[in-house]
């Protein structure tokens, strides 16, 4: 029987570390084994389990775009045991990765549409993979806009990329910070993400909205989008339930009839409305 142990991770070398925000880092990870790198494929929206050997595994999305080959990137906040241990890694250190797991954002179905990305705080990483993927396939889509907010200026992630997107003519970016989170030299908006979306009142015609953020942001943004005329089948989000196996066996991410790791993590609002709110 040639079954393979699905729990054996790829060994990855930390090739580059970017400090994004307080306790938030981005790792660029390269495969130690070049053969594994050559055979590795993933789709935007998929996730993996990242190991800090000695401490365990933690689940987060692949934050880089599949159009950028040879490496993957992940962005995480040091909050639990594993992420705190990962945060102590230095360039050149070895970590583990297994995946990719889960479903994907259906980019092919979005061809010819306007894309509206709405993200809050540390939830930009999953959308960053989609945004870069769409920018790298720019001619396939109409307008691309991004509304991104964080509690404070310091908490904004991918600051260098936000500046790059600001300078690009083919993507509209609105960045906001929560009231009180601005600095004296802040030139962006001040206000909660749902408030800013309401002011911008994006047109729902031929547009899909991709939303990811903390539960409170989701709670106020989704009804707003529906009010603006977005159908529940044109609103997408991605869930980050706690997971252990990543491939539909350990039961931890089970929400209603769904295994978030298999049937998700990407859901339309229409699909989400059929699940109990246990996420």
């Amino acid at each position, binding site marked *: *029987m040639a*079954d*393979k*142990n*699905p*729990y*054996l*991770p790829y*060994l990855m070398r930390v090739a580059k570390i970017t400090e994004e925000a307080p306790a938030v880092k981005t790792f660029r990870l390269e495969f130690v084994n070049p053969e594994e790198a050559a055979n590795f494929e993933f789709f935007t929206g998929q996730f993996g389990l990242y190991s800090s*050997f*000695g*401490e*365990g*595994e933690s689940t987060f999305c692949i934050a880089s775009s599949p159009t950028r080959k040879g490496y993957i990137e992940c962005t995480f906040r040091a*909050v*639990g045991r594993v*992420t705190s241990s990962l945060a102590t890694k230095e360039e*050149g*250190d*070895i970590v*583990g990765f297994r995946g990719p797991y889960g479903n994907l954002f259906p980019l092919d179905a979005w061809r010819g549409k306007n894309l509206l990305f709405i993200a809050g705080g540390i939830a930009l990483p999953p959308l960053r993979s989609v945004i870069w993927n769409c920018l790298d396939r720019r001619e396939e889509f109409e307008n691309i806009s991004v509304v991104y907010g964080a509690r404070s200026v310091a908490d904004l992630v991918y600051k260098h990329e936000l500046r790059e997107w600001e300078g690009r003519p083919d993507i509209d970016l609105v960045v906001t910070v929560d009231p009180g989170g601005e600095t004296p030299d802040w030139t962006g908006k001040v206000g909660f993400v749902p408030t800013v979306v309401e002011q911008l009142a994006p047109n729902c015609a031929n547009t899909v909205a991709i939303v990811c953020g903390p*539960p409170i942001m989701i709670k106020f943004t989704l009804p707003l989008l529906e009010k603006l005329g977005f159908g529940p089948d044109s609103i997408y989000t991605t869930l980050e*339930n*706690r997971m*252990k*196996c990543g*491939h*539909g*066996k*350990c*039961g*931890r991410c*089970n*929400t*209603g*009839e769904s295994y978030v790791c*298999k049937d998700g993590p990407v859901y339309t609002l229409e699909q989400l409305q059929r699940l*109990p709110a*246990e*996420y």
Partner: protein
Amino acid sequence: MTSTFKLSASALETVFAALGTGGWRILGPTEQDGRVELHEVKSPSQVAGQYLQSTLSAKEMVFPKVERLLSYKMSPGQVDLKDHEPDLQPTVLFGARPCEAAGFGVLDKVFNWDSRDKLFSERQQHLTVIGLSCTHADDACFCTSVGGGPGSTRGSDMLLTPLPEGGYLAEVLTAKGEAIQALAPAVFEPVDGVDKEALLAKVEPAFDREELSAKLPGLFTSDLWAEQSLRCVGCGACAFVCPTCACFDIQEEADTKQGQRLRLWDSCGLRQFTLHASGHNPRNIQAERWRQRIYHKFSYFPKRFGEAMCVGCGKCTRACPVDMNLKDHLGQASGAPDHG
């Protein structure tokens, strides 16, 4: 492919001896200090007599409480990974009750539904199940409500049903069962005209599983789950004794130079099961966790796999420190008025 034989008490001793000679390990229910659990046995005389069930289930045969997934060695800038290749011995599980044996089929759906779980499958391949029909049952039993029965052959490679005059009716059910028979073919005597049903315990159905499953989506917001679980202490004993509960955790055991990654039994009834590092918990109160247990087993699992994730053994009821009775709770849900 079922063939039925008679096996005398002494014939069973011959089979045990042949298994031992053939290098098989035999695990059977043995009684120690009034508690029946599975232990290695060499002879039928070591097997418990009039036992109802073991306290723990037999799932550990294919899904150990703690299983190493991999190990590794660490040095600066380097990690050496090692796959876990357990050294497995052909094993016979003797005396599994039909509910226990059926549990293996449910576990197989969990572990092999989408991709095959190597460690589980290898243990499964090395395991032969000699089931033992039930001639008595207790109030916690409800196998007949979930598609099983006291003489059900599901999951057994050979099923023995005790005969009133001594010895057993032996049904050889699979190729693995035939392999056991082939170790001592002479002791399997031809038999005719035995009414197996008449030998079995009577377990009256307590509810209709399909009706219950159809009803549950409409009861999600019912107060029933809070009422039933008010006394639940969230200890997880129900999941640990359950032949079909398969939820697991993965944990690290390591020092600074080496470590191993372990798969361990877990339970959706425990608060930490879904707790995020941020403090957010999708199932924050015990009533929600109790509801998840019921819905996973009787609503979500049947939708995906066509059967309940429950074999009606009643082990959870017998193990519960606060006397929650699964059969009664399911019966109550089954008869509950529809909820808006």
